[in-house]
């Protein structure tokens, strides 16, 4: 089971640059000892977007050597993943690119998690637990949703594939998520496991106050409503939209889905 990787310090102020800023010339600005810190941040951001996982390690060690606040690095990750998500939805990037971006994030997380822990930073981000239901081993869709949700500022615990109702219950008890994301690719697992998982999680709602959103190619809005989900996303963008609207209490089954 993966753990949440990001924690936000109470006094942390986000960086004030955006993705639309001028392009970066890597070769001339990345000069080692006398580097421009912002340029390094920008490089990290762009490396994630481009999925240059083979270059991340070197840059990361430069940043860490310079005693950079690890939370600033997480902010870069968030900005980058947001852009990756946007570019995926406009088909400028593809799953292969997303996967490489995810590899970059994984390498970054592995490097900075110990630092965050040792500095005792406290989390303020809300947690989402998600996974593919029992009997279903399709992981790519949930992976994309995970990236989109991380980009939207959530800590996402992706339990992975073939997750039984008991495993979801255990994760709820451990992480107290505000949302549970359930994915089913196959029509069989949608019909059987997804339904069964929601039934199993229902009794926990009063104690843990979470909402359930569902998705996957075999899940339609009508079906999602029928099996007792609180929200539905037929793609990653809609999943984020559903989460936001449910949080704000303005989710409307009839209006949220793309027709």
């Amino acid at each position, binding site marked *: 089971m993966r753990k949440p990787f990001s924690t936000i310090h109470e006094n942390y102020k986000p960086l004030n640059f955006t993705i639309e800023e001028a392009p970066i010339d890597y070769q001339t600005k990345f000069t080692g000892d006398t580097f421009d810190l912002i340029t390094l941040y920008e490089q990290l951001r762009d490396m994630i977007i481009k*999925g*240059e*996982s*083979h*270059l991340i390690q*070197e840059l990361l060690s430069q940043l860490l050597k310079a005693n950079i606040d690890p939370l600033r690095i997480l902010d870069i990750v968030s900005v980058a993943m947001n852009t990756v998500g946007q570019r*995926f939805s406009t*088909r400028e990037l*593809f*799953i*292969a*690119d997303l*996967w*490489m971006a995810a*590899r970059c994030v994984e390498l970054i997380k592995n490097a900075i998690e110990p630092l965050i822990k040792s500095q005792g930073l406290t989390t303020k981000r809300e947690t989402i637990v998600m996974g593919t239901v029992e*009997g*279903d*081993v399709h*992981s*790519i869709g949930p*992976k994309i949703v995970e990236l989109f949700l991380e980009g939207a500022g959530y800590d996402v615990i992706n339990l992975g594939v*073939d997750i039984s109702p008991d495993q979801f219950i255990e994760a709820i008890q451990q992480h107290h998520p505000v949302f549970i994301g359930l994915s089913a690719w*196959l*029509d*069989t*697992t949608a*019909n*059987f496991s997804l339904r069964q998982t929601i039934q199993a999680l229902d009794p926990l709602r009063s104690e843990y106050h979470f909402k359930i959103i569902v998705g996957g*190619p*075999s*899940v*339609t*809005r*009508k*079906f999602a409503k029928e099996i007792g989900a609180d929200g*539905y996303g*037929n*793609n990653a963008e809609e999943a984020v939209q559903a989460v936001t609207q449910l949080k704000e209490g303005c989710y409307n089954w009839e209006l949220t*889905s*793309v*027709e």
Partner: protein
Amino acid sequence: MGLLKLLKLVIKASIKNKLRGFGVKLTPLERILLFNLNKIPDRVATILAVANIHPQFIDPSLSWVDLLHDVDKNVELTKKLYKRYPVDSLTMLYWGGPLLGSGLYEMGVPFQFTEWNYPTNTDNIIKIADDMDNIHPPEIEGYFETSLQVFCKVQEELPTIMVSPFLTSTFTLGCFLRSTELLLEDLKCYQRYMQAESEREKRQIEDYCQNLGSYPTFFMDEMKTYSELVLTTLQRYKEYGIDPTGCVFWELYASPPSLDIDEFLTYVYPHIYEMYKSVKRYHPLGITYYPDSVERWRILFDYAARDKQYLPTISLPAAITFPINANGDLECDHQAMIRLCKEYDQPYTATILPYFMRDASKEEIYQKVKDIAEASVQAHLPVLISPAALTNDTDPEKVDVFFQAVCEHGNYTLPFYRKHTKQQLQECPVCQQPTEVCYEDRKVICPSCHYTARFAGDEHMDYAVIIHEHN
């Protein structure tokens, strides 16, 4: 089916097709053969991928586990399906599914078997490059043998329809052996390595790959191996006495959104094309590819036209590529697709998703299929239409409606009737008296001799196409 027999069948089908005006009817096999050769048959052809249908849809007492080893039950179920629906072609005959039918279990991929779910692989077996040494083609045993037995028996017992082998193609086979994520990563590493501008970056990629247990050019090597595995699997069909004519290669994961079409054409297609050349003599029904938009479809066709090579592709809009809307339907403009295919002289395969078949009303299904069928007739394009899968909770009558719409609206007209100008519509072809033309119902009625005809087209068009007439 030998080449000579195939040739005879095609000639017979072509002659019969021209004699339709005299009441000659095509068999389902003849219809699908003509579609396969990009010729206009008598009506829009239909195909069912059997293993995509829940066994409970046909017989509620059966589960997937019941069907794993029982050849007779598989065959009986298929025959029941064929008896109920006027389908022209059947593929994926074994209820173990396309993965077991491609011999993946016998290659060493672990599977999970439950009563309520398709047999699903639970892990991948090529974790690092060295694992390739242990990969072997499937022997004729176990589930793979059962699938071959089912195939033989169905082919024998249903000789008038096209029954074609269904094999997992190169890239998709790699996804199941190596995992989609790692295969995509292998491709990206190879791509970066080939495009690296400095020796330093090349070394960085080498180090990165080494940490993953592979090397930068591993992708090319593994793709070659996967193609060989597919070909050997097809060879096993032949060894077992199965005619591979009309075989389908299922290439699911190389399409958008997994890969951009440029990446597909540069890094994946050459492997598939090499494989295709080896099996060309069996007239493969196609290698499925799933462009996610009309624009990307055009790129694919342009590529084929530029290189003057036949594109061995059934292009399918599917749930994994085309976004599906909240009603479970593809956001795919079939009419636009049909126009594009007509422009490039390519046949078209239209898919109706199982979620739409499950959740939409009978009227919605009828209208959807009717629109596709009429557009096919109007464009005079060979079209194959299929409900991609059927779930156990789908109303069987909805599937009746699907086929009813194909049969009522998917009849191609003989060349004589192809185009009618507005003026021609207004004159009865039997008694030459003025007719009543109702564009709303798309009907022509002659009050004098009671000739009636249904046509495709509307008042804004220059001409209409008569699709059915009755004297």
